[in-house]
């Protein structure tokens, strides 16, 4: 899966689960202010990402640094690379 495909998969999964507008799915979009998510949505978002990409991330401290959709893209891409390297 290329980085572009990962980004597309993330955006589609989040749009579907959280009823987000595809036009709002820009890397700069902040989760709380722009996308209108709340902290419980972020907890659910982690579960959605785990089930979409078949990995466990809920204990990862880097999650706390996520502010924007671009941060999620980077986090997931890095995580996939890390798993591929270790695997």
């Amino acid at each position, binding site marked *: 899966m290329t980085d572009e495909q990962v980004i597309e998969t993330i955006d589609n999964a989040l749009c579907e*689960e*959280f*009823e987000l507008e595809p036009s709002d799915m820009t890397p700069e979009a902040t989760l709380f202010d722009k996308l*209108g998510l*709340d*902290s*419980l*949505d972020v907890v*659910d978002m982690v*579960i*959605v990402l785990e*089930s979409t990409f078949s990995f466990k991330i809920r204990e990862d401290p880097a999650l706390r640094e996520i502010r924007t959709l671009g941060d999620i893209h980077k986090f997931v891409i890095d995580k996939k690379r890390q798993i591929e390297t270790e695997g």
Partner: protein
Amino acid sequence: MGTSSSQGLLVRAALIVLMNLVCYPLLVALTFISVVVCWPMLLLTKALTGWRWGKCARLLVWVYGRVWLWSVRPFVRFSREGFTPELARTPSVMVVNHQSFFDTYFMGGLPIFDIAFAVRSWPFRMFWFRPVMELAEYLDVESLSHRETERHACEILESGSHVLFYPEGHRSGDGSLGRFYSGAFRLSKAAGAPVVPLCVSGTGTLLSPGRWWFKPARVKIKALAPVYPGDFEGQLGHRELMNHVRTLMSQELSQMENAAEEIL
């Protein structure tokens, strides 16, 4: 035809002016009187019933809403449907669509008074309401963490009362049902309490967000059948519950809107 149409418009305009001349001063007077008399009434209620303070306060809030509802009767036709005695007896997480500041007042029209509202922080900033809201154990979902909100709400449900959420989080600008937040549905799962969807129509006509004058309206509140959280399992069961309830409410609100248009 043209004359009767313009006469109709004039009558309607006059009615709107009259409504605003009457309803605003009435609201201020009712609120002032309520703020003054609620404290002796609270003591009296406590002495007569022996209920918890929160329940006593919730009764008085409900009476305030009901008196307001009665006072605007010449301009607002109110009806309700679907409220069974069983629904009143079973502690539940009520979820309501949100069209107007006055949605909360119309909860005085329900046959159930023992409801703690989960609201944002701004209603708590109305200093004349705040002490009663705190006594009534209203939940400030913006100031409290989700964990604290859930803990307080579970305690309220365990005491046999209901908790009411506006899952859209804010009023709908165009009357359509917005995206839901999941807090109420997580609570339902955590407490094992059913979700009771309440569909409100007409309050957006009465006073929509951004408008400051009242318009006459037909307001209806319909309670749908309780939805039980046990039917929605898995890590995202609360979201499935939420989506199911939202679909039910969306369908019902469309029907209510169509019925209202037919009447008009």
